[in-house]
């Protein structure tokens, strides 16, 4: 072959490779936003009770305050929006290596959706699963807008400073605070990207159950939402229960939510089981 022939063959090969990558991407997106999304379970019935014997700790977080807890793999937290007017903001770090932490960009990108709900998982920055949303009566959560700050609440109590204080008590600093997820935070995004708040979609007694898939530090802040017009009022208390859920069954919704989730759990288990760091 002449050099020209070789160049032509190489160019055709590059085009074929790009086409193959596009075809794979389109297929993954179609599955992720189609079949996988449709197979997610419906919201949890608000009457679903916890077995009292499974509860290891109960905490009431006063309005404006935060609480830090450590979860071992397999433990879970139930966050209860007692009065229905609260938003609970969460950040998380791996206990084994706090540079591994909640990553909402990967959480939403990998699952092809910003709509967190029962059956979805929260990722760390290392392609592993931090938390599974195993029960959820609400389905109205926000991964985009972030924490309240002193100027938004007009008081000393806000999630930005709550996260700073909580991090400091773990030996961490403002370098370590990742974007937070806001539970019980109905935010709508319009075609131009503008945010709209629909606080009336929260209901008293709504809860979400989060199962730890690795050992985690969790900080919860009960200090409102930046878009909530009532954010300057002291929020109502929220209840948190740390409990031991049943082991995941073979039909566990989170573990079966598509190829991405299957791989993420496989990598997580490989890491947890063998101490792999890559």
């Amino acid at each position, binding site marked *: 072959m002449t050099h020209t022939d070789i160049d032509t063959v190489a160019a055709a090969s590059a085009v074929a490779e790009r086409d193959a990558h596009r075809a794979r991407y389109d297929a993954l997106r179609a599955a992720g936003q189609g079949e996988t999304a449709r197979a997610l379970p419906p919201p949890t019935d608000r009457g679903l009770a916890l077995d009292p014997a499974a509860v290891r700790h109960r905490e009431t977080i006063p309005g404006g305050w935060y609480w830090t807890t450590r979860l071992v793999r397999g433990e879970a937290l139930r966050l209860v929006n007692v009065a229905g007017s609260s938003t609970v903001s969460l950040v998380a770090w791996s206990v084994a290596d706090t540079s591994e932490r909640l990553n909402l960009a*990967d959480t939403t*990108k990998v699952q*092809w959706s910003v709509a967190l709900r029962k059956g979805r998982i929260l990722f760390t*920055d290392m392609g592993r699963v931090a938390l599974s949303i195993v029960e959820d009566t609400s389905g109205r959560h926000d991964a985009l807008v*972030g924490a309240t700050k002193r*100027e938004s609440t007009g008081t000393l109590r806000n999630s930005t400073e709550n996260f700073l204080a909580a991090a400091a008590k773990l030996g961490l600093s403002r370098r370590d605070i990742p974007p937070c997820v806001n539970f019980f935070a109905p935010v709508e995004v319009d075609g131009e990207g503008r945010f709209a708040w629909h606080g009336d979609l929260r209901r008293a007694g709504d809860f979400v159950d989060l199962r730890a898939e690795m050992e985690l530090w969790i900080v919860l802040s009960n200090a409102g939402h930046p878009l909530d017009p009532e954010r300057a009022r002291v929020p109502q208390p929220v209840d948190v229960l740390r409990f031991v859920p049943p082991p995941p069954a073979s039909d566990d919704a989170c573990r079966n939510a598509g190829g991405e989730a299957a791989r993420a759990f496989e990598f997580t288990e490989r890491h947890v089981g063998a101490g792999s760091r890559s």
Partner: protein
Amino acid sequence: MSAPKAPANVRLDQVIAARTPWSHVLRRGETLRLIDLGGQQAVDALFYCAADTAERYSAQGTLREQGSAYIGLGTRLISNEGRVMARIVADSSGRHDTLAGCCSCESNAVRFGEATKYQHACRENFVLELGRHGLTKRDIVANVNFFMNVPIDAAGDFAVVDGISPPGSHVDLVAEMDLLCVFSNCPQVNNPCNGFDPTPVRVMIW
């Protein structure tokens, strides 16, 4: 498409090769122009206050303050201290992302299969370039993705789609503080953010 003529006092004019990182300190009041030479090329960008790098870009803070999800003309890039780090003063392409983060070997393996774990990624660029400034993986925050198009629909569906930046597209930002800029000219070939073919970009400072 060609960017408007830069002023005569350009002090830096460099091409960032495809797939590679770049960093530089932009002085307060200076303008940085980023030009998407080949079109549809995402550039992942991190920003730190040069005087105190614990103050850094906050994606959620930026979106909270502007009340909307995309980056474009007029966006003020906000720090974790709530201060304005930079303003976008010119933008020929119209939309940039700050929700989808940077690609990594780890997330690629989850998204596209384990075979993609050994492909170069923005996180590799970031940790190496940050290391030159005494920063580490823990300093990688949610970044800006210039020239990357990631719409959210009413149901919350979210995906990287084809870029809308033709060759020669540009975005200009003005620093409001001395600003360490750390860029990764994105190597991703598994989604449309680089048209499946990473290409060089040009950066100018005046």
